[in-house]
Every structure is written in structure tokens, then in C-alpha cells.
């Protein structure tokens, strides 16, 4: 598989750096960010009209079983692996848990977009921002790009910022919303999942173990399991057949898992990047990763620590059978900056997911000693 040779020539980059130095327009190109392209197009991830997101050769689109909620934005994900010495793609290394080990030089791209009308979500898509995770020699770097008004390109915007957006939701209601692009530090806040290193979150075996409709070079489409395809194309090394790999349920598809399985997966992808034993939420003692059964660490009858007003006058993180007495639900249902969880990346309530977590708490066994 031929890789499109990666973006900018040295001269172009230097010019960008200098331009950024003078202007600081949109917060691009200063300090540690001076080395990065000011335009998304420079990365060469897509061919044709940029906003169409047609992946260039060597760029793979992918999807997840259960994704982070981002104010109902649709997300379009791509990964490009670097070339090895022989010109072949350098594969990612399979891991059964946690993100795959991607080689230095990997670029992961995620575009956030709203359709004009969620009743026809494939039409009138307007990209807002594209976040890159770039694997450098000394670790991963997060770069936010904001699309220009003409949708011809996106500009590096390390300070992020507010964007006014509007759409018609699935029920036909007009929504007006101030969407917030995170700043480059906030990339780290979420992605520094082990408290030390910035890491990808989504591309892990259980999340990728699903079918995706790929459009081939000749325009034909092919529905294929992503793990199988990555094995087949040399993107992934050391992976078992998809049937033997873990598979996360789809949070809102009942046939894919029990309420407990779907809720735990939802909490894992929406909360556990901070709320694990090492991430930035570790100081609370709350551990919302899937796969463990320590109820106290899940918040069950656990007192809050630093929640402040975020307790909502409730005594415990989770009270089995009582979602309305559980702090977890209170904070998911809030859009107050001092109360809401997650703190970053949403300004709206994820109504459908709240319903799932409510159901999970409602069905939870009370503690034997209670």
C-alpha cells in the first residue's frame, strides 16, 4: 500500500512558523506549535474537495462501537500510518485492552460535523473542527483545526473557541448552540489517560471490532469488519481473527449487550479517560473503566470528595435502584460548569445516554448489607 508522502516541505513550514509568530491569528503557530501546518489541507489526509473527506491513499476511515458524546456532533475518523524503511506501511501493534500501539509518524484525524437536519443526517454536513493526534518521537500531540466559513480548509486554532451552530434535531426541532472547540491543553486533559502520556482513546480492539462501509478506489463499497480489514491490509500486527477479539456493545443498541454491558461501555469511553486509577480524575477515587467489579470505585455508596456544589445535595456517587439520588446522574444532567460531567467537550445534556445510565442504576443490585 503506497502512502501519500506526507505534507509540507521544510521551507513551507518555516514560512508558516514565521507567519504564526507575527500574527497569532486564531492562536496558530507559536511556541511549540510553530512547527505544525497552519492549514489542515497541508497534512494531505484527503483528496479532492477537503470538506468531502475522501481519504487519500493510505488513509483509513474507521468507526467505533460506542463513542464519546460531543453535543450530538457526527464524527468522521481517519488514521494514517507511516511508511517503513521498505516503503510498506508500518503497522500498529494489536492490544487486547487499551489503544493499539501506533508507530511514530501516525496521524489520527477526527472531524466533527452537524447535518442541517438530523432526519437526513447524510445531507448538508457542515464540518466544524478537525482534531489531529500526531505521534511524534516524544509522544502524541493534539492539534485542533477550525474550518473556515467557506469550508475550503481548516485553520490551526490552538486556543480553540466558541462556534455558533444550528441544526434540526431528530424530532424536527431547531437547535441553536454554542459549540466549544477545546484548546490544545484540553486535548491533553482527556487524552493523558495514564496521567503521564497523551494517548489515543478510541482505536482499541473492542471499539473497532465492527463492520464499516468502505468506499474503494473504483467507487464500489464494501462492508467489512475493521479488524479483519486492518489485518488484511497490513495496518495491524498481532491481531487475532475478529471473532476472537473483544467486542464492545453499541450503547444504544439493545441487541449488542445488556444494560450493564452497554452502560459500562458508555462510562468507559465517556468518563474513564479521566476517571481511572491514573488519569486526571484519579484524585476523586472514582474509576469508571469497564471490566472491574469494585463497586466502591464505580461510585456505589461512595461519598463525593471534591464535588462541591456538584453533589446536588446527594450523598453518594451511585445509589443502586435510585438514579435520582445518584450524583453521577445529577452531574450528567447538568450544564453548569461547576457541576457538569464531563467538564469538557459538551455543553448539552446527552438525554439518551442519561436514560441508559438511569436504567443501569435502577437495575443495580442494592448492596447486600444495606
Amino acid at each position: 500500500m503506497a502512502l501519500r508522502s506526507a505534507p509540507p516541505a521544510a521551507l513551507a513550514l518555516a514560512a508558516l512558523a514565521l507567519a504564526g509568530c507575527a500574527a497569532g491569528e486564531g492562536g496558530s503557530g507559536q511556541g511549540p506549535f510553530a512547527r505544525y501546518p497552519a492549514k489542515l489541507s497541508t497534512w494531505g489526509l484527503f483528496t479532492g474537495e477537503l470538506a468531502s473527506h475522501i481519504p487519500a491513499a493510505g488513509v483509513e476511515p474507521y468507526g467505533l462501537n460506542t463513542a464519546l458524546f460531543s453535543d450530538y456532533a457526527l464524527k468522521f475518523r481517519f488514521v494514517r500510518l507511516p511508511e517503513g524503511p521498505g516503503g510498506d506501511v508500518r503497522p500498529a501493534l494489536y492490544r487486547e485492552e487499551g489503544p493499539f500501539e501506533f508507530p511514530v509518524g501516525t496521524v489520527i484525524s477526527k472531524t466533527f460535523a452537524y447535518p442541517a437536519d438530523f432526519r437526513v443526517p447524510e445531507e448538508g454536513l457542515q464540518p466544524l473542527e478537525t482534531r489531529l493526534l500526531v505521534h511524534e518521537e516524544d509522544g502524541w500531540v493534539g492539534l485542533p483545526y477550525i474550518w473556515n466559513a467557506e469550508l475550503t480548509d481548516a485553520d490551526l486554532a490552538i486556543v480553540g473557541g466558541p462556534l455558533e451552530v444550528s441544526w434540526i434535531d431528530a424530532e424536527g426541532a431547531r437547535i441553536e448552540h454554542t459549540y466549544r472547540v477545546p484548546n490544545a491543553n484540553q486535548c491533553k486533559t482527556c487524552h493523558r489517560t495514564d496521567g503521564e502520556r497523551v494517548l489515543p482513546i478510541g482505536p482499541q480492539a473492542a471499539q473497532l471490532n465492527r463492520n464499516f462501509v468502505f468506499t474503494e478506489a473504483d467507487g464500489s463499497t464494501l462492508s467489512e469488519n475493521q479488524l479483519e480489514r486492518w489485518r488484511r491490509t497490513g495496518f495491524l500486527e498481532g491481531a487475532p481473527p475478529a471473532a476472537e477479539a473483544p467486542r464492545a456493545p453499541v450503547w444504544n443498541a439493545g441487541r449488542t449487550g445488556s444494560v450493564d454491558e452497554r452502560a459500562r461501555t458508555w462510562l468507559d469511553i465517556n468518563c474513564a479517560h479521566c476517571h481511572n486509577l491514573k488519569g486526571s480524575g484519579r484524585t476523586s477515587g472514582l474509576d469508571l473503566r469497564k471490566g472491574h467489579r469494585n463497586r466502591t470505585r464505580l461510585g456505589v455508596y461512595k461519598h463525593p470528595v471534591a464535588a462541591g456544589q456538584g453533589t446536588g445535595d446527594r450523598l453518594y456517587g451511585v445509589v443502586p435502584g435510585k438514579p435520582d439520588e445518584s450524583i453521577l446522574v445529577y452531574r450528567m444532567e447538568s450544564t453548569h460548569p461547576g457541576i457538569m460531567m464531563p467538564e469538557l467537550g459538551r455543553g448539552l445534556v446527552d438525554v439518551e445516554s442519561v436514560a441508559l445510565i438511569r436504567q443501569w442504576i435502577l437495575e443495580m443490585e442494592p448492596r447486600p448489607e444495606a
Partner: protein
Amino acid sequence: MKQHTLCTAVCLLALSACAKEDATLRPGDNDHRTLQEALLTAEPGAVIELAAGRFELDATLSLDVEGVTVRGQGMDETILDFSSQAPGTGGEGLLATADDFTVEDLAVENTRGDGIKVEGTTGAAFRSVRVEWTNGPDTNNGAYGLYPVQVTNVLIEDSRVRGASDAGIYVGQSANVVVRRNEVWENVAGIEIENTTGADVYGNRAHGNTGGLLVFSLPELPVKDGRDARVYDNDITDNNLPNFGKEGAIVSTIPAGSGIIVMASDNVELFENRIHHNQNSNLAVISYLSTGRTYNDPGYDPYTEGVYIHDNEFVGGGEGPNGDFADAFVALAGGAFPDIVWDGVSNPDKLVEGEVPADLRLYIENNGDADFVNLDLGSVFTGGEPKVSTDLAAHQGSLPAVPQPVDLGAATGGAP
């Protein structure tokens, strides 16, 4: 990536062209962008100087570059105003996640969540900073004013915090901490030292809070068992404000009128403090068990062991006992709370021939005419009758090994 290696030399040139004097930032059209960009692009060790004036900030500011100083022109001159903070932009005013961070000579006002948080670093100095919720005590104010958590080497000095719905100055799960010469008022808790090892807390004024100064160790946290605190030369006065914390948080259980409370922390020395007119109790030493709160944490030690209270000045206070301990006391003995209240709970597993070992005892001496009560709740917990005692004789003496002064080294100015 290859192209970056190629361009390194050229880019370095470009960078050096970029390197500029530490220019002073001024309030303007888009204060968040101005400040956040400076924080993102700062070189390690940079000083970010803020002009006098009011910066209107609609989003959290975050810093992840080592050794940066953010400096204003004074806590009443340079004001970071977070009144318009929007959802989804973060839970605090300023968040620092890099080592050797210093913030000084500025104010942070009206954050929707916490004021200034430093998380998981080595070296944090807060100097002459004011954090204030200008509407005064309100349940809907943010939780903490100055908030280092899991930080080694913390200096908080000459700062002022008002209106926090949890603790004005909160040091959590940290080590090597100096908190000195601060003023905290109209918070639920003035100063809280929690699950922290090695803290010198002195020269502070805590007044008009619900509780003045707390030295706590709480369960179900990754860093447990706080110890080695020296609390001295503080003025802890008139902390009688009705509790305005949201239920659920530990501080919301603190009775109004609490001067100093030591709970489940070990090896604590309290001396030469002036503890006046705290109407529930001037000074209480209790185990976590006495809160009645349940926990599931086998590694947690709920007992308060090794406390040395000496040479303090007690005036007034205890005249309006309220809360659970007070109820117990009134039921058992009645009247005003003595100056020093001990729940009388010791770890039964550590008794040697029925006695608490010398290094785990409560010692009280040279506190003027301060009176004392041992509520003996330990007997209540084991189903017995409490033997309430006001006898100080059993508490004569001093800790065999008092906590050592905290040495912060050079990184934060060599305090104390």
C-alpha cells in the same frame, strides 16, 4: 515525523525569531484567547505578566508548561473575572498541570467551579492571590478557592479567599506543604488540609467561616492517611457562619461554629494558636468513625493518633453546641462545649495492655485555663456506657516525636 526532522533547523530559526520579551498582557476584546494563547505558547520558565485591569473570561484557562509564573499587578489590581464562564470549557478558573507553577499578585473572581487548581505536579506556589465569590456565601458558589491536589511542595502565602462553598484553601493528597499568612473568611471551611503528609500551617487568619481550619484524612481516596501537620500561630476566630455547603460533601456536615477540627490525621501538633469564640467548639479531635459515615476502604485508618495541643489561647466559644457530637455531649453532660473536645476513640487493635501507646496519644498542656472533654464515644461504639471525662491529667505530656518543619527547598522560595 520526517518532515519535522527535516525542518528542525529552519524552524528553530523561526522559533528564535519568535522568542520575545515577556510582554505584559492587557485586557481587551478577547481576553480568553489572549491569555490562553500565552499559556499554550509559553517557553518553560517564562513569566506571563498581566496588566492591571479586569480580564473577562468565558472559559477555563489551562497551563501545561513547566516553570511558568503567572503574575499580575496585585490582588486588587489584576482581576480574572470568570462570571461568564460557559459550559464545556472546564471546571475551574485556572488549571495548572505542569511542575513549578507560580501564580501571584492577581485575583480570580466568580468561577463557576473551583478557583485555581493545580493537579499532580511537583512545585506549586500561590502568592498574594485573591480568590473571591463576590456575592459572598452562596450554595451555588464554586467548591474550592486555592486547590492543589496530589502536589509535592506547595506554598500558599499572603492570599485571601472568600465565599467558597467547600474550602477556601484546600490542600488534598499532597506532601510538603506550607500554608502561611493567608486570610480566609465566609467559606464553609476556611482551610482544609486533607490526606496530606507534612504541612506547616501558620500565621493564618480564619474567621467568619462555618469551620475555620480542618486537618482531615478521608477514605476511598488514592492517597490516604495524612500525617505530620504543624498548626501554629493562627487566629481562628468567630467561625460561626451557617453551613451553606451542598449535602454530600464532608464539609457540609461540619457544625457552624467549628474552630479547628482534626480528624483521622496522625501526628499533628497544634500550638500557639489563638482560638476565639467559635460557638460550637473551639477545637475538636475526632475519629472518622464518629461522623457515622460509612466507607468501603480496607486500607484506610479512621483513627486520629498522636495529637499534641499546647500553648494555645482559648477565649469564649462552645456556647452553642450543635451537630451530632454536640447532641451526644448535651445528652451526656449538658452545657457549653469545653474548649477542647475529644471523641475518645482509639484503635482497639493497637492497645498495649489496655493502654494507647505513647506515640499515638492525645497530649494537652499549657493552654491556659482551657477546659476539655473526652466524650468516650469509643465505649458507645462497642455497646458500652460512655464515661464522659473532663480530666486533663490523663493527657499531660508531649508527643515523643513532634512533626518536623517542612522544607520546600529552593523551588518555591525556600520557605519557611
